[in-house]
Structure formats: C-alpha cells, structure tokens
C-alpha cells in the first residue's frame, strides 16, 4: 500500500493535454508509458492516470486533477489476481507494462502489470478495506 504517492488524473485529448502538460500521454488503449512526469496509464480515450505530482490546473475541458487519495494501490501476485480477475493474464495477452480496468468480484479495479508475477491493483478508497479482506481470503 502506497497511498501517499501523488497521483493525477488527466482528462482531455492527447494533443490538448500535450499543450497543457508538455508531453503526449499514451494513445494505445490499455498501455502505460513513462513520461517526464512519471508513469502514465491509459484509462479511457480521454482519461489517463499519472503517478506523479504535477500542478493541478485546467483549460476548458482539458484538466489535471489531484487523485492521490482516490485510489489505494495493492501489490498482487499473479495467482491471487487470477482468483478473481477474468482478464486473460497470459503474458502474450497482457505483457509487462499493460494496464486495464476491470472488476474483481464486486470491486472495480485498475490492473497494471509491473513484472511477470507482480501487479499493481488500484481500488477506489471506499472499497479498499473490502478488497484487502478479499486479498487476505484468497491468499489463504
């Protein structure tokens, strides 16, 4: 759990965001990229999650928001993840660096593959307690 790490939500288009923050977020769905300001995950065609603390600002419908508290990050091993995640997690289908939003049981999650066996799983804070219990249960 690394809650206090600064996170930002970027919303806009690739080009309007480039104007606002000075770099292009990844345009390939469900991929991540290392940017000058930190690791950046594709969430939607018009939304990205940045692991970094750049200034909050907006210009019209292009915006950078603070989401440092919104998600709690868990580090989860492949076996535990496969207990509840319906994604095809074979490496050829979900390589290191890929990310996806999906559900685990009744919990919406963002999954990011850090290594062959290590995943970051981001859970919205109000459900983090529940997800923690679930992780404990499937760990047994």
């Amino acid at each position: 759990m690394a809650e206090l790490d600064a996170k930002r939500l970027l919303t806009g288009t690739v080009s309007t965001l480039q104007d606002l923050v000075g770099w292009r977020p990844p345009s390939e769905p469900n991929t991540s990229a290392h940017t000058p300001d930190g690791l950046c995950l594709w969430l939607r065609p018009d939304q990205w999650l940045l692991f970094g603390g750049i200034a909050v600002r907006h210009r019209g419908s292009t915006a950078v928001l603070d989401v440092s508290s919104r998600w709690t990050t868990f580090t989860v091993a492949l076996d535990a993840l496969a207990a509840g995640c319906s994604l095809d997690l074979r490496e050829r289908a979900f390589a290191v660096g890929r990310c996806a939003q999906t559900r685990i049981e009744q919990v919406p999650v963002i999954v990011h593959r850090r290594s062959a066996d290590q995943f970051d799983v981001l859970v919205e804070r109000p459900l983090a307690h529940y997800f923690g219990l679930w992780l404990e249960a499937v760990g047994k």
Partner: protein
Amino acid sequence: MRLAEGGTHIDRSRPLSFTFDGRAYQGFAGDTLASALLANDVRVVARSFKFHRPRGVFGVGLEEPSALVTIVRGPDREPNLRATEVQLSDGLVACSQNAWPSVRFDLAAINGWLAPLLPAGFYHKTFKWPRWSWYEGAIRRTAGLGRIAGTADATRESKRFHHCDVLVIGAGAAGRAAAEAAAQRGADVTLVDSGRIATLPNVRALPNTTAIGCYEDRLVAAIERIGDRQRLWKIRAAEIVFATGATERPLVFENNDRPGVMLASAVGAYLERYAVVPGRNVAFFTNNDSVYPIAEALRSRDVVVSTIVDTRRDDAVLDSRRVDCDVLAVSGGFNPNLQLFSQAAGKLRYDEKLAAFIPGEAPPGLRCVGAAAGEIDGGVAPRWRSPGNPRKQWVDLQYDVTVADVELAAREGFSSVEHLKRYTSVGMAPDQGKTSDVNALALLGEITGRAIGDVGTTTFRPPYHPVTIAALAGARTGSLAQRYRRLPVAWHEKNGGVMEDHSGWLRAAFYRRDGESEAQAIAREVRAARFGAALFDSSSLGKIEVFGRDAAEFLNRLYVNNVKTLAPGRLRYGMMLGENGVIKDDGVFGCLAPDHYLVCTSSSGARDVAFWMEEWRQCEWRELDVRIVPQTAQWATLTVSGPKSREIVARLGVDIDLSAQAFPHMHVRSGSVALKGDPQVRVRRASYTGEMSFEIDIAAEHADLLWSRLLELGAAENITPLGMEALDVLRVEKGFLEVGVDTDGETTPLDVGWGEAIAKKPEDFLGRRSLSRPAQQRADRLQLVGLQPEDPQLFLPVGVHAVDDAGAPIGHVTSSCVSPTLNRSVAMARIRGGAKRSGEVIAIDIDGTRHRARICDRAFYDPQGARLNG
C-alpha cells in the same frame, strides 16, 4: 471381496480404516468409498427416494444413481454424495441416508407395498380435500434425500480464472491424443479430468477436476476436488475438445434395481482398478459385445462367471431360465456423454446403429472425439423393456421411476419428452438421468409408436454433476458477503458509532454513549446541531466535476433548474429527472469557474448520476465540449453545522474569509488549511440541517486528521459527532425532502411543489416533456406536504396511511419525528391533492385507530431560513 493381487488405483501398503453406519472397515489408499464397501461385501448402502427399496453400488463413477451416502465431519455433514465419488481417507465417517431405523431395515419400505397406489403424479390426483396442507407436511418429511448440518461451514472455497487455446475435457485415450496433437501444433493446452491424469509434454493437466458447465463463448466451469474442498475453475478457451466418453446404460427388467445388479463396465472397472469383485458368482445380461472381455478378465482371476445372457441370442429363454449368481452385470449399450456439448449449443442426432444420441452440428470451436463422438463398438440390439410386471422394472433408479410410470404418462397424454420428464420426474434427480434418459425416451417412443429420433431428447442443464453451494459462493461469504463502502474517517467505529448500511456505505446511525438510550443519543446530537455545533462525516456525498466551454449548457439540460444564471462562487439546490419525469436525484451544484462546475449528488445517486451524465454526453450531446470526472472517493467531506460552526472552522486556519459578508450561505470557496502539508480544501456553505453549515472537502488521506482537529478545536463548544438518525430529524424539522424516502418511482417535481420554479425555465431539460402528460397534471396526485398531529406527542410512524371518511387510503407518511427542537411531532406525507389542502385536518390510521392531523407547510422550523445565513 478383494482379490489378493492387482488393482491399478490402490496402494496396498497404505491401509485405511473407515466406518459406514457405525461399523468399522478397512480399505486402501486409492479406494473410493464404493470400492472399499464392495471389498468388504457391503451390499446394501442406501434406500431409494420414493419406495425406500434397498440399493447397492450400481456404477463406478459420477453416473452412480443408487449409492448415495452422507459424509460426516465433526458437526459438519455433506449429504447426497455418490459412494463412487468419495475418495477413501483414514477415519472417514460415512453413513446411509433416507432410511429409518436403518438401511437394512427401513420402515418407510412400506411405500414399496403401497406402490400400486403411488404411481407417477399420484399426489395430483388426491389430497385435494379438505386441502393439500393437511397432508403436505407428512409427505414433505418423507421426501428429500439426506440431511444437512445445523451448523455453519466456516471454510471458504476458492475460485480461479484460466485461459487457454485448447481445452480438452476428459483424459481418456481420445482426450490424451487430442491434447498431445494440439500441444504439438504449439497451442496452449489444458486437459481436465475427474480422475487422475498421466503427465503429457506441454499440456497443463488439471486432475480431479470435473467440467460441470459449458456456457456462452466457450466458458467452461469446472470443479477441482482438493481433499474435501472444492475449487471452481472458470476456463475460457478458444477451442474445446469434448473427450467426455460414454456411459453404459442398464437393461430394464423386473427388479433391476436390486443390490447386486450393476453396470457391467463398473464390474470391470472395480476389478481392474481396485481388484474388487462385488460377489462370488457373476452373471452377465447384455445386448452387446462389451461384456465379453470383462467376463474373460474375471475368469482369468478365477472368479466364477456362471452365465452370460445375451439378448441377441437367448431372448427366448429369458423368462424360463433360472440363473444363480450374487452379481448381475448388465449392459444395455452406451450413451456418449454429450451433456456439456449440448449445453454449448451443440446439436445431437440419434444413431440407429449405436441406439444412442451422437454429436450433430457443432458450433465453431467445439468438437467431440472418441466415444463421445460415437466411436463405440456397435452390435447393440436395442431392448428397452422386458416381459413381466412393468411396475417392477426401473427406468430411473434415483427417483424410482418405473416402466409403469412411463406407460401411465403416455396413457394420460404426456407424450412430449419434456412432459414425461415433468410428469414422472425421470431424469430430474441429481444424476440428471445419466443412466436413465435414453432408456426413458426410447420406451416412450416404443409406447407411443414414434421413432426415438422423433421423440427427441430433453435439454441438458448445468451442472453436469452437483456442486456444493460453498464452491459457487467462493470467497463471498462471512465478512466478504456484503461489499460496503467505508468512510475515510476511522474514528466513528472506535468511538461508539453504530455503523449501519446506508445505500451501500457503512455510516454511523448515531454515536452511543454510556447509559444513553438510542433516542437520547439522537436527541443529544440534534440539540448540538441546533444550539451548538455538530460534526458530520458526509464523505459519501457524490462529488462530480464538470469541465468545459459547454459545461453550463450541459448541466442546464440535466437540471430542472436554470443553470446558466449561476455566477462563479455560487451554489444552487437542484433536481434531476429521469426522462419519465420522475425525480432521479437532488443536491447542490456550484459554479467554480465559467468552464468548471461541481455537481453534488446524494450518496446513493453518486455513481448512477455520473454514469447517466456520461451516457448523455457520449451518446446524445457529442457536440458539447464537456468532460465529467467523478471525484467522490478523492474528496472527504466533513461538515460543521450549528450556530457555533463559524468560530470553530475559523480556528482551523483556512485562507478563506469566512465572514457572512464575504462568504454567505449557498456559496463555495477554495483554499488551503493549516494542517500538515497545507492541504487544499473546498468549502461549501450549504445546509441539510437548517443551521449555518460549512461543508469542507479535503483529500481523503487528510480526513482523519481534519476530523480530530475539528473535535479539538470545537471542544469548548462541545462539538458533537452527528449520526444519520439525528440528521434525519434535523432535515424533517426543516421539511427538506429526501429522494427515495419522500419520493418514489412515480414522484415528479410537480408533486413536491416545484411547478412554478420549472415554469420559469425556458429551455427543455431531461424529463420535462413527461411532466405535461395528463396523469402528471392531475390534481389528485400524491403531493408532498407537512403534517402535524393534533396530539403533539403522537409519533406518526413512517408508512402509516391517511384515510378518507370511507376508510380508503388518500396518502401516507414519508418522514417523521418527534422534534426535540419544537417538542412536538411533525411529519411529511404524500397526500392526494395535498398541495391545495393546507390547513385541512385529515385522519391517520395507525393499526386501525384513527388520529387527527393537520396538513401544513413542510418547513416546521425556521421557515424563513434566517438561521442558515447567520
């Protein structure tokens, strides 16, 4: 009996002891309960479902219809297990079921003598007078199979998702070949089998795993047995190969359900795998060649095979000849196991040569191989029944269905195979007709003079084999059964907060203090808000940020209010409707900048509203430049409310001018607060209590700190944590409505007094057109009003109804409290035509007694709202 040598599945060096019905027996590692019981010459292991006839082991695998037992583990018991699926373990405790006093002598066997009176569907033909309930209880108790434990089973089962290119179901010769071939093609292959699997190169093997269901888009559910636990596998495969083999079907003849009558293939399997012969003198009864090698194998182990009656030869002699034997091994041919294939929408067709259903057209990505594909030695001479008493010839052993029952069904017009199934319950038992279905429908065809292919087969339904409910529930039991959202402030639970479910969030109903009743606690919290200061965790409040040049236009289409006139820094209370005109959600929204708005929703509406906004943005109003970001989880919201609230908030050290002039009611300001790291805050002067309030949004990670800080800073004013119940009292005193409580699936804004406000708005908005339909315009609709009982101390429970002189309902109470502030009972109610009936006294019916109450304005407390401005 067990032979001295042999047995591919058993390990003679590891003897195991177990008990059945209290008697101790010995078996070997690798035995099933069935093989061990046969090895110990236990012949009667169960009683049948309806007639309580003695039954022994009949098969060797999941097809077993008769030998149902209960496994006991301490206080826990698992009923209805087939003895053939129970792996023997040391100290295993098994017992028979559905028998009293014992399986050897069962009083309910009387049903057997009554059989003539109990044909299929007999209960529909009688027990009508005086009514079914006079008999139902007794009949219910005799039905059912095993008993379940009275205590909970605490253990959690696990689940597992799995993906592969090729899934092969069944590890027999054909399955192994298919798996090997696919692996050589370089495919990622998974092989599942109910039993053991010898390893294959580059094949993921899942032994002790039974595929139980084949669902859409090639999703296969499979159950892995790990000791006495089960794990559910959800396997998604690009291609599925069904190597599910075939199941032998019995021949139908008089007393074919007696202990000692067994499937020939089972007799062969017990000999080969467990070196067990179920008797000393085996006779065969067959209509095909499959039994001869088995007979040979028995003879080669010096087991007496007294005779082989082959219907293709000896049909004539059947009635006359007497054969001495203690085991009768029967074979009526084989049915390919196509249940899973059929669940996956595979078609079946009847094959005359095999007298069985074989795969027809297969959906893409599915194929059958081996016996499942009909690769079975033929030579079957179909024979669906025998001479003699049809009431003594069993078609379905598990639910006690006889030839006579099938005849009766046909006679009474139940000639559709689905009718047959429902009328006689053939194939409806836990085994789902594995040994009975083809016999039953062939018999039906014979009786009704139709070809079997025309009779058709019933649909196969998951699961192929019963699964414990625990395995399907998986981890979602106990503390994981209910998925609650938690507030960012941990303080509540540790400080007397009575946490309850409020639309999916665990929130404090009230805060318990020693020696205080619930009502006292609530009253104390209410007084604090009215006369001092209260602190409330409203973090579940929905917070949605809307950006863009067209943000105002976008929101103006969503709200019944006029959004465009809202100046930066201001808040407005608004309502949203569904297109049907019904109130969807309400709350304040604010203009932070001309291209940046904040939408606050109810806790329950937060996700729904954001979802609905996105739908309109993406699907209908694509021309608008606007983006929506729900930030409910990011921002905690702590509300300080009450006459003393301003001074307490001032002590926080926020860089916002809090004076009434600079920061009046219904305004919003941003700034930072003097806590570690000077976190940003957004403060709203909006109130749900009717008192001056400061709603402080702060990043959730700082919520704990801010909460305790406010408690410190307000200690002098005795700042008091406020629970949901007190909040409810406060808003009822003010006559503030709560969507979903004071409104329902039919309530429009016109019903809650918003008619004029709406009339002022020029533009269209979602749901507006619905409001002008005749029914929404009627004067006698349920309209929200205030209600004051004439007896000021009489509490009007929520839900009680107002009635007219004739006693007909004219509305109901939606919210209510005995106001500690006004020291009188006040309520809100939806009353027919209520809007125009202010001042009228109406009758409220509480448990049959009428009480008088006056219709009045909803704002009972501070109607002018002077206290809000403070």
